[in-house]
């Protein structure tokens, strides 16, 4: 049984009697101990999908359909109280901006203890000592002293470590990392990613890693989902996707990565912009930016089809 099974997830935003699909019919599975990378440009629906799994979608957003089966139970059928027992305990999340994801007026250590006191019913002193361990495990030295510091006394990388310490304090089964390195200095990005991998092995948790950095994905992920305008364009195991990308969008994303083995020349770009939710084109949502678009693409939004075992793609070219 997979740890997480998302089936036909639809998260729509309802504004002035119109509905806008931020996540549209997304399905995937995630097994225990694996890393699933969700890649896509900004506005592709990665974060909304993560928030949907966490049950943190607020109006005007709403989960309009589908199932999120976690450890055999549908999270969408759970009450808010039941979801609170899962959040931070079974499923944790870290954010791309550690500068604002930590409470500026609460002590760093107390932010770790909080989750332990809620979920593990730990007493303050006990929570404090577990928090020291968590801080040490994410590489924050002098934990006893730094416990009482406010987040502003930590650097960007240290704050992200702190966020990770908060997230793993209850040893969750699933960690959702929403672009955890985007706001960080390149020199510490690798450290943070290594830390996530190390903790994943130590706790045996699964990770959903949202990113638009294919370099990170190639290094860390077991499976990949490529998202565009709220839909999955392609999904496959990591090696398979990099070896044989089938979707024009995936290919285009890959052609934008600088490669050491490539001849000198200008880097490729994807023309145009990700359309706004309110202006999604009819038919294939990528067609306006696709090099292979045909008249048919404006009519039909292709289905996600299995092109190889475990390899899915959404493009009319795959049908031929």
């Amino acid at each position: 049984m997979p740890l997480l099974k998302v089936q036909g997830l639809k998260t729509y935003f309802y504004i002035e009697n119109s509905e806008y699909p931020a996540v549209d019919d997304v399905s995937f599975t995630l097994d225990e101990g694996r890393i699933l990378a969700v890649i896509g440009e900004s506005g592709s629906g990665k974060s909304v999908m993560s928030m949907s799994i966490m049950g943190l979608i607020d109006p005007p957003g709403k989960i309009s359909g589908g199932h999120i089966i976690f450890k055999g139970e549908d999270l969408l059928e759970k009450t808010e109280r039941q979801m609170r027992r899962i959040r931070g305990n079974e499923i944790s999340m870290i954010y791309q901006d550690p500068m604002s994801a930590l409470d500026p007026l609460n002590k760093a250590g107390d932010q770790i203890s909080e989750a332990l006191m809620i979920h593990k019913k730990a007493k303050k002193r006990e929570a404090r000592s577990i928090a020291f361990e968590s801080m040490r495990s994410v590489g924050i030295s002098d934990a006893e002293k730094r416990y009482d510091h406010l987040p502003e006394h930590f650097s960007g990388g240290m704050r992200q470590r702190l966020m990770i310490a908060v997230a793993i304090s209850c040893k969750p089964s699933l960690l959702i990392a929403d672009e955890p390195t985007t706001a960080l200095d390149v020199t510490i990005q690798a450290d943070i990613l290594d830390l996530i991998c190390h903790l994943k092995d130590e706790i045996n948790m699964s990770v959903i890693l949202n990113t638009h950095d294919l370099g990170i994905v190639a290094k860390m992920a077991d499976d990949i989902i490529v998202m565009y305008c709220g839909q999955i364009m392609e999904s496959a195991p990591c090696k398979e996707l990099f070896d044989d990308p089938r979707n024009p969008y995936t290919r285009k994303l890959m052609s934008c990565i600088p490669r050491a083995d490539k001849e000198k020349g200008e880097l490729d770009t994807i023309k145009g912009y990700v359309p706004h939710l309110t202006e999604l084109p009819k038919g294939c949502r990528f067609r306006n930016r696709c090099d292979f678009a045909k008249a048919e693409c404006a009519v039909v939004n292709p289905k996600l089809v299995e092109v190889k075992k475990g390899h899915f793609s959404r493009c009319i070219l795959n049908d031929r």
Partner: protein
Amino acid sequence: MISPEISKAIIKKLIRHALALMLLLVLVLIITGIPQDFNIVSYNARNIPNMDLDEIANAVIKNFISFLDGTSLLVRIQGETAGSLLIRTASKSFAVLFAGSLLALAGGVLFGIFAARKKNTAGSAKLLLSLIPLSVPDLLTITLVHLFVLYLYNNGISLLGIPPIPAYGDSTIINAVYPAISISILPAAYIARITSGVIEEDMTKLHILAARAKGCSRFVIIRDHILKNVLYKILSAYPAVIGILFSSLVIAERLFYYKGMAFYLIFLRTSPLIPAYEAGVAFSLFVSILCVIYYLIYTALDVIKSILLIGTRK
């Protein structure tokens, strides 16, 4: 242990506030030093003052001197010195101010939290919060409370098991209940607006989302992550709240015939029973002391605010 940075900020504030208070006292003593029987009469299409400028200046100077050398405390008002009257009435007014202030704070914060729960921004609680402070004059609010109290007392109705409280007078501490309630309504609405505004604003912040992702309930989020910010914002706005409380106190004490400092302010100014000079000196003393008290509270709040502000940066 107060750090040198905080000490420096506190000293700067104390000096600034002391200078501002001195300036304010000078203004108050000039205005209140003008004799109470000063008048301008119209005669043959001419406006003629009943005193010349020298007389007024002398009265103002005399007022300054009597305030500074303490003789204003010895002026007799209905057989009692102004000093003892001040002490007697100040304790009564402070009971009302203190209780009103606490009620406003507790009621305002609780109502603000409740109002912030309403998802619909046009909810009736929020509408009331906007309407009361902005549209209803304090006189009307206090009069309505007074009418309600009269109704309760005249019909012998008791609330929450408390026997009917007299609608007038100041003979017992229980008489302070209604004035305290009536002066707390507007400040409570003001605090509630601040509270609900801060909660709504903070609820959209990423660290609150992160707290929700940790499994915190709304109650825990408000208690542990938002309330500090709310209290800080209230502390910043409290000088204005104290101002409202002081102005409401004048109306409440008069309507409820509760003989505190604010009651005597009106009484000294309007009663023909007290000679103009004594009434003028005592009035000047009362207003000056009220200014000093207001400024002391304001300074204390400002100092606490700077300690908290710098303290949180430590």
